[in-house]
């Protein structure tokens, strides 16, 4: 018996790159939405996605904030977790070895309140097993001094990224995670890139508020919180578009409300070389694997043989026709 030719199966090359490091899929989890990956193991093959982006880790274990920590909003949610986590020691002792043994890649999100914290975390990750790279969370809205989110200031952002890049494992690409809550995201993106960031993760949550109309007080224990989910997708896409237009050679990990393969395709067309799936995991724990398959199908249907050929394709000049894409 001979095998039938697989003419109808779209064979799109889905290999992607995170700061020059090849990954098997352009779909990653999103920081803060998949813990450290273990809980998703029953639902899909963690090896088959680009990487598990860990919950942001800090130097010390953190309890996180008091409850309530979340509220559902239209096509989204607002959260104020406060970076609950085991700290870098717990990450190195328990979480990274598990991911490495499982064959999954870890894109480690780090957070801190001082530049030196970030640098120390990057230093500690040198040589750790299974680490793909580092996402520098300079934009969490749920930190101590909300008025001092690094990513609201180009100079502060640049200082952190330069410090991290200087001490991080040379094999680890370093991405800056940016907030959309700024007037000019391109200036922050450029500052990070100039400071040595190998790529940009866009976007973190938007700062929001929900009030309980029964108690007539804010719902969240932390009062304000980060808005995520499909509600913020157009904002995220706009940020990716603007930054890719200004800095076409800077790799972008796009995120913000991605729920389907077509959502992911929008980010790729806007200039993202890879995407993170965050809040959608709460709705559908197998979403990263599903979105990978849907994105591959969508690319094939549009005549793309390689994911790489679709990156930034929406920026082409008006006279260029859609139709054949490829080398």
């Amino acid at each position: 018996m001979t095998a039938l030719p697989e003419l109808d199966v779209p064979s799109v090359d889905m290999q992607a790159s995170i700061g020059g490091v090849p990954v098997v899929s352009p779909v990653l989890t999103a920081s803060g939405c998949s813990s450290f990956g273990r809980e998703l193991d029953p639902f899909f093959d963690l090896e088959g996605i680009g990487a598990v982006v860990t919950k942001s880790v800090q130097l010390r274990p953190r309890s996180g904030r008091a409850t309530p920590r979340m509220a559902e909003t239209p096509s989204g949610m607002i959260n104020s977790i406060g970076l609950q986590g085991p700290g870098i020691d717990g990450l190195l002792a328990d979480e990274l070895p598990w991911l490495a043994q499982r064959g999954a890649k870890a894109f480690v999100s780090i957070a801190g309140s001082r530049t030196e914290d970030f640098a120390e975390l990057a230093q500690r990750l040198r040589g750790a097993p299974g680490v793909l790279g580092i996402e520098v969370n300079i934009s969490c809205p749920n930190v101590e001094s909300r008025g001092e989110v690094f990513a609201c200031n180009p100079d502060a952002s640049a200082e952190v990224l330069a410090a991290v890049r200087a001490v991080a494992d040379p094999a680890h690409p370093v991405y800056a995670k940016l907030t959309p809550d700024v007037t000019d995201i391109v200036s922050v993106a450029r500052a990070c890139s100039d400071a040595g960031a190998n790529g940009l993760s866009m976007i973190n949550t938007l700062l929001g508020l929900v009030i309980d109309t029964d108690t007539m007080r804010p719902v969240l224990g932390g009062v304000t919180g980060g808005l995520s989910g499909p509600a913020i997708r157009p904002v995220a896409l706009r940020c990716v578009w603007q930054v890719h237009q200004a800095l076409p050679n800077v790799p972008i990990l796009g995120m913000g409300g991605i729920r389907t393969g077509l959502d992911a395709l929008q980010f790729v067309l806007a200039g993202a070389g890879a995407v993170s799936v965050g809040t959608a995991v709460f709705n559908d724990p197998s979403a990263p694997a599903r979105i990978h398959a849907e994105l591959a199908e969508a690319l094939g249907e549009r005549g793309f043989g390689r994911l790489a050929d679709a990156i930034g394709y929406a920026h082409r000049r008006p006279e260029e026709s859609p139709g054949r894409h490829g080398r």
Partner: protein
Amino acid sequence: MTEDGTPGGALPEGALTQEVPTSTGERLLPPVPGATRELLGEPAPPPLHPPVQGMAVVVGSRPVSAYVELTLEAPDIADTAQPGQFVAFAVGGPTSAMLLRRSIAIAGVGEGRFSVVVSARAAGSTWLASLRPGEEVDVVGPLGRPFPLPPEGTPALLVGGGYGAAALVGLGGLLRSRGHEVAAVVGAGDEARLCSVDDLAAVAAPFVVTTDDGSSGRRGRVTGPVAELVAGAGVVYACGPMPMLRAVADLATARRVPSWVAVEESMACGIGVCMTCVLPVVSADGRTRFSRSCVEGPVFAGDRVRFDDVGTLPADVVGADAMGPAHTPAVEGETP
């Protein structure tokens, strides 16, 4: 695993009643202010089976006083579920604007089916309650840690509040099948909000119903009958609103009776990744952690939950010292 699918082998024999070791001091409770007693319950062991996700077909829907009981065909879930576990439903269909899963205790299993009692309170639960036979719903389960079973011969007291009583039905039947004496107290605000009365009455004696307004059974809270019955119990199981769980756990602990409480905490995912459903719970090492109700619960040893501190950030919770001075809850006038 025992033949009837219970976690009998997972719990050390006598784990619920043995005196906790003190020679090493491990089980003492220095972090809890004013607490020098030993804890009665170990943390509940994890479930035997990982959860699965899939589409379940609704095969039955019937109103049960103020609630709707849904029965769903889902052998992967029904065949591995243990009493105390729950399922998490996606609501509103694939394009729904409601992204968060609705977590509901499993009320019964059998023949590849499981049932849940839905309280239609807001848009998501109303959508669930309106599902008709033949329709499908995306469900993840079984989730959470089941009720640990007591040593052979231990008489059990079950206490259910509102629709929380549904979570005790499977447990009651299992305990009876294993030869335990089972007593039960079921309470609610009024008769319409009582739940699983017939199911629990069938397995429990004595069986007491209470309502706040006296519209059914004894007028008042469950705590009255519980205070009378706890002396004859070797273990207490409770599911219901947090104030009820706290009162029942306190009554049990005061009589040195171990208790297990299944909490109803707000969850976004149900599978352990969102970190929204945490409670301050004393861990095996005696330190308090913000523990996820979904994967470290929903069943906790009643004397390990720090009910007084729910909704606050106690200074002795692991990692609280890293939160900084600005992390007192709900700072007035805080600005981004």
